[in-house]
């Protein structure tokens, strides 16, 4: 994080020489944050009580008593997980040509695709791998991803049917091939379904998500959303670009009206050059994103029904309960190659889907290599070993474990190396400030899905 987040203590220096806490101005009228970066432990303190809080009291006492536990927890989260999910690309092909896609267009036009037998063999191998280290009561996850997975529908559905008791399945689709029969199969098997939609009207949504002939697909996605009404396991992803930033609050209204239970408002990942011209600058993205979050809160207050923005919820959870986070992009090292990996149709294994299309990041092949060896391959280690302590700027940033400096693919391709930041440093700063303001105001639960903390234990609750 750049220096503006560091607040000067009123009438004093940054912090006392022996204090572990870094002051962070969260732009709140009464409270300021104190963060101990390495353990990701924090407190929100009334500005007029800052000096005495730094001198002693419950915050400092809690940190002294539990810092070692917190450090162990962060070490486990960051360095000792084993994969429990695979992003399974059964096809390289796609019937759309979205302007920011991270998969090269020649692959999407005519790439390879798994047949049924090949897909079943892949699932068998994956099952054997996951069972080697995962507890019996926890199912590994397979997310069919793309390109457009529904182009390999028959093979994928055969895989889901054959392995329905051995994996939890999800599918991320552009919705153009989701007919009633497909939806009945997927919902009947409890498959998570992710759709993609970038705007509340065809005019906006179709600017970035089009068929190869330029036709939009807005109507297909809306039809699928309406068919999925009431299914708890569906959600919609919007990629924020310069094309839709002025319309994000309207999109939130649209999702809420359509009873979408959760969405993501994702930044444009700039791994491929085509995405970089669309990404929007940090301030424009932050302003639109925070306005959209506030709109979800207004809608919740008015209707009693939440529309959870999952990527922001994950930042909130990273602050409240670091080990309870679901998404692993916003932690360093990221989840690529260590809590999940990606499989291409020819069997090639990548640390993450974001690297598909970058041949130098192939770590091996599912059909010829041992997965454990692939995880230790040089291309995987390049991602697994990327950590904020080695990135200039992040190394002194107090919120480095709430952000994680995503994304390594973006940093490598756009900014010149693994030890560079990604594209949206200031946007992540603003998200963390906003999340802490919500906590300071006692509004944070309104932005999280009910039951998010089931299975957690309270390690600290001061003023909560």
């Amino acid at each position, binding site marked *: 994080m750049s220096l503006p987040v560091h607040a000067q203590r009123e009438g004093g220096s940054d912090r006392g020489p022996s204090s572990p806490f870094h002051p962070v101005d969260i732009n709140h009228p009464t409270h300021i944050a104190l963060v101990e970066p390495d353990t990701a432990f924090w407190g929100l303190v*009334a500005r007029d009580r800052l000096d005495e809080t730094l001198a002693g009291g419950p915050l400092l006492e809690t940190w002294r008593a539990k810092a070692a536990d917190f450090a162990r927890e962060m070490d486990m989260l960051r360095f000792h997980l084993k994969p429990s999910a695979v992003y399974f690309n059964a096809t390289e092909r796609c019937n759309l040509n979205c302007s920011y896609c991270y998969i090269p267009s020649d692959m999407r036009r005519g790439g390879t695709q798994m047949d049924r037998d090949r897909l079943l063999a892949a699932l068998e191998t994956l099952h054997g791998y996951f069972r080697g280290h995962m507890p019996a009561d926890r199912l590994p996850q397979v997310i069919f991803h793309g390109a457009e997975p529904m182009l390999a529908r028959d093979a994928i559905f055969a895989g889901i049917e054959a392995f329905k008791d051995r994996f939890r399945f999800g599918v991320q689709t552009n919705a153009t091939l989701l007919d009633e029969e497909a939806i009945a199969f997927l919902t009947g098997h409890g498959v998570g379904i992710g759709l993609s939609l970038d705007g509340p009207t065809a005019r906006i949504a179709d600017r970035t998500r089009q068929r190869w002939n330029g036709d939009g697909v807005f109507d297909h996605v809306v039809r699928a959303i309406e068919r999925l009404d009431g299914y708890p396991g569906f959600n919609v992803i919007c990629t924020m670009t310069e094309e839709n930033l002025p319309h994000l609050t309207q999109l939130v209204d649209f999702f809420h009206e359509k009873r979408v239970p959760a969405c993501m408002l994702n930044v444009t990942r700039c791994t491929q050059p085509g995405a970089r011209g669309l990404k929007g600058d940090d301030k424009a993205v932050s302003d639109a994103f925070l306005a959209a979050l506030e709109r979800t809160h207004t809608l919740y207050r008015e209707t009693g029904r939440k529309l959870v923005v999952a990527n922001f919820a994950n930042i909130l959870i990273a602050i409240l309960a670091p080990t309870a986070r679901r998404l692993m992009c916003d932690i360093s090292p990221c989840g690529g190659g260590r809590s999940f990996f990606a499989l291409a149709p020819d069997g090639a294994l990548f640390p993450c889907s974001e690297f598909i299309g970058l041949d130098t990041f192939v770590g091996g092949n599912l059909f010829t290599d041992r997965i454990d060896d692939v995880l230790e391959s040089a291309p995987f280690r390049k991602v697994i070993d990327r950590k904020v302590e080695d990135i200039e700027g992040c190394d002194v940033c107090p919120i480095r474990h709430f952000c994680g400096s995503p994304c390594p693919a973006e940093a490598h391709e756009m900014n010149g190396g693994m030890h560079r930041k990604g594209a949206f440093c200031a946007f992540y700063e603003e998200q963390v400030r906003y999340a802490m303001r919500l906590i300071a105001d*006692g509004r944070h639960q309104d932005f999280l899905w009910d039951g998010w903390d089931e299975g957690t234990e*309270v390690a600290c609750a001061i003023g909560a």
Partner: protein
Amino acid sequence: MSNSTTVKTEAQPETRRPDVIAIRKTCDAEGTGLSHYVLMDKQVKR
């Protein structure tokens, strides 16, 4: 529907909040998701 992107004034709490707030919960780490797919609930009920 509004299409404004201006950050609205955030609602303020009606009562004074505690001088010190700190929350930390803990559990076994099971995070498995990347930003290309929403991964929230631990299990979709069939």
